[in-house]
């Protein structure tokens, strides 16, 4: 309870500052966030859902926050001077947790009515639009990081796509952690997809300087009826980075959502994904890859709530753990009473490359309907010795053969990425990662 108390005090002392640096709509939820934080505290490892990641510990240091919204200039051109063709995206930047306008983030090319940019600005200029959605999915009635994020978040990113509008060009939001001191950032992202609209959003999470960072991230996605949305959340930070992310998705009838969660470089990461089917005939494809070494830690927890009939969810998470890194995956699927003809499939496969690497996996199915098709499977193993030897007999050296097998293993997930140029680039990124050529933050260079 102690770290939470410190943040409550901090907020009370700086409330005016926080609110001045934000917008009315975001400020209206701060009281609720305050009481939630006071009630539940920060999530700790005595809770089953946080068994393998004591997130509350991350909050113990006296983190600095940029509540006064001091300008923290980031030289985007310097960071991303390399531009590889093929994947052309509509580009946006968040410097720490503040939306940073950049020359390259022009509005040109976006269809009429689309709003993409600063959440704070949207909350100021279009409060009607933000109010309807902001904080409606993030669950503060349980221990988590939604409360502390809602308490301190001052800005972030919003993507609003009106009914019937298709954005052909993928949107890319690059978040850069950059400061001269250790920093805690509270990032907020809101995505609203109107009826029968379509969009693709790529999030690239980077740390530029070698400071310690703690990021809380809350993403809320409203997928309207018959909408299509692809979300790629790519983390490439460094070993001193702490990240707690919560992604909430509500899927209306007939919507199709795919989420790819890729952790290529990190310190300690906890990603929580909660998807609810609120309309019939919706489809979810939820996939993840984690590649870890040193003492990195990745914990993905997913919760898919089949509340209505005729929805399909498929999940595939794969981890490759090297050295003394640890991974955790918990996947809960709840099929509620009456959610007939639910089809749900969950797979978690993991490779521990060393004896020191650890993986904890926990599939969890709760089914209260009788006419459903549900399956799950989890494995933890090593690289296939037989395949390795077969390859070596054909003249492929041990190191190269291992690389090919690891790439093939996570390739199953990357192969699901629908954006072809992104898929190619991810293959290349992962290959570089396995070859040890990717130290930090080369991600967007390779993926642009």
């Amino acid at each position: 309870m102690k770290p939470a108390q410190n943040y409550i005090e901090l907020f009370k002392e700086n409330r005016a500052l926080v609110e001045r640096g934000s917008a009315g709509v975001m400020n209206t939820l701060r009281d609720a966030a305050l009481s939630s934080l006071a009630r539940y505290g920060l999530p700790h490892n005595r809770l089953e859902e946080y068994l393998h990641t004591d997130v509350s510990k991350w909050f113990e240091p006296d983190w600095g926050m940029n509540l006064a919204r001091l300008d923290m200039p980031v030289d985007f051109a310097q960071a991303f001077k390399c531009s590889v063709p093929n994947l052309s995206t509509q580009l946006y930047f968040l410097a720490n947790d503040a939306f940073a306008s950049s020359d390259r983030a022009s509005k040109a090319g976006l269809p009429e009515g689309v709003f993409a940019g600063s959440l704070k600005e949207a909350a100021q200029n279009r409060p009607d639009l933000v109010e309807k959605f902001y904080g409606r999915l993030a669950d503060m009635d349980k221990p988590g990081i939604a409360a502390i994020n809602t308490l301190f978040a001052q800005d972030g990113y919003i993507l609003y796509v009106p009914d019937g509008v298709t954005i052909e060009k993928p949107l890319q939001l690059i978040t850069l952690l950059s400061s001269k001191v250790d920093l805690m950032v509270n990032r907020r992202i809101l995505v609203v997809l109107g009826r029968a609209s379509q969009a693709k959003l790529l999030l690239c999470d980077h740390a530029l300087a070698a400071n310690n960072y703690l990021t809380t991230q809350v993403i809320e996605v409203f997928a309207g009826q018959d909408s299509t949305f692809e979300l790629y959340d790519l983390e490439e930070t460094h070993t001193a980075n702490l990240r707690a992310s919560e992604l909430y998705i509500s899927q209306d009838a007939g919507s199709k959502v795919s989420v790819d969660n890729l952790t290529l470089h990190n310190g300690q990461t906890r990603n929580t994904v909660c998807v609810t089917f609120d309309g019939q005939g919706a489809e979810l494809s939820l996939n993840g890859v984690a590649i870890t070494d040193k003492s990195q830690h990745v914990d993905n927890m997913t919760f898919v709530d089949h509340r209505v009939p005729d929805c399909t969810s498929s999940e595939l998470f794969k981890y490759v753990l090297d050295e003394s890194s640890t991974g955790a995956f918990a996947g809960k699927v709840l099929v509620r009473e009456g959610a007939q003809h639910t089809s749900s499939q969950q797979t978690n496969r993991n490779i521990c490359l060393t004896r020191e690497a650890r993986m904890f996996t926990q599939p969890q199915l709760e089914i209260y309907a009788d006419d459903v098709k549900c399956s799950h499977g989890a494995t933890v193993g090593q690289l296939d010795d037989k395949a390795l030897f077969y390859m070596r007999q054909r003249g492929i050296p041990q190191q190269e053969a291992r690389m090919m097998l690891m790439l093939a293993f996570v390739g199953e997930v990357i192969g699901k990425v629908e954006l072809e140029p992104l898929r190619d680039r991810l293959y290349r990124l992962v290959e570089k990662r396995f070859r040890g050529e990717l130290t930090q933050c080369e991600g967007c260079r390779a993926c642009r």
Partner: protein
Amino acid sequence: MSMLKIENLEAAINGKQILKGINLEVNAGEVHAIMGPNGSGKSTMSNVLVGHPAYEVTGGTATFKGKNLLEMSAEERSHEGLFMSFQYPVEIPGVSMTNFMRTAINEKRKYQGLPPMAPTEFLKFIKEKRDMVKLDAKFMNRSVNEGFSGGEKKRNEIFQMAMLEPSLSILDETDSGLDIDALRIVADGVNRLKSPETSVIVITHYQRLLDYIKPDIVHVLYQGRIIKTAGPELALELEERGYDWVIKEYEDSLK
């Protein structure tokens, strides 16, 4: 010219002695057949020769084209021209045949100090070798051996052999699980790859394969030793009379 010379080779797996002193010399251009009852050490012998890490060589020597074979890694042995067709070819999900072959070929070229093969040349090369074993082009985009039938897997082994152009090929029970048509295609591929500079060791239970791949010399392996060596007529005799008489002859000789 001596291709392979094995002297008093002993090997064990998990502490269990399997090979108890093998002597064998294979010259360039020769085809040797190694036959023997189950559990006699045939597969151990081929695995030891190609450097399988699970087997421990506990004694003896093996010289391949004048070099100490036992000092080389599995991949070096391959680069030097040693090939084994696996009894059970391994499925490698996610690694395409093309990628697998390109990597194998170019690693060998790197070992030989050659630049990687040009893409067009590589594709031409693949097609030529595929035709030899009648392996359809669609297999090249599929994962190595994944979902291949038994016959397709064995044809794929011979295809890889053709691609890698080894000096010495060990065919480990290549006939197992093959119907007569597939057997003919596989044997035909092997025969076409034969030259005065290359040698083949055929490991088999049955005479059947030897009708198609004619051996020059036939050996009988029993309890980790070669107990009889003779001409091709020995294979026919074994087919007819089984192994018991050879074993008895050997045991009598020990008395």
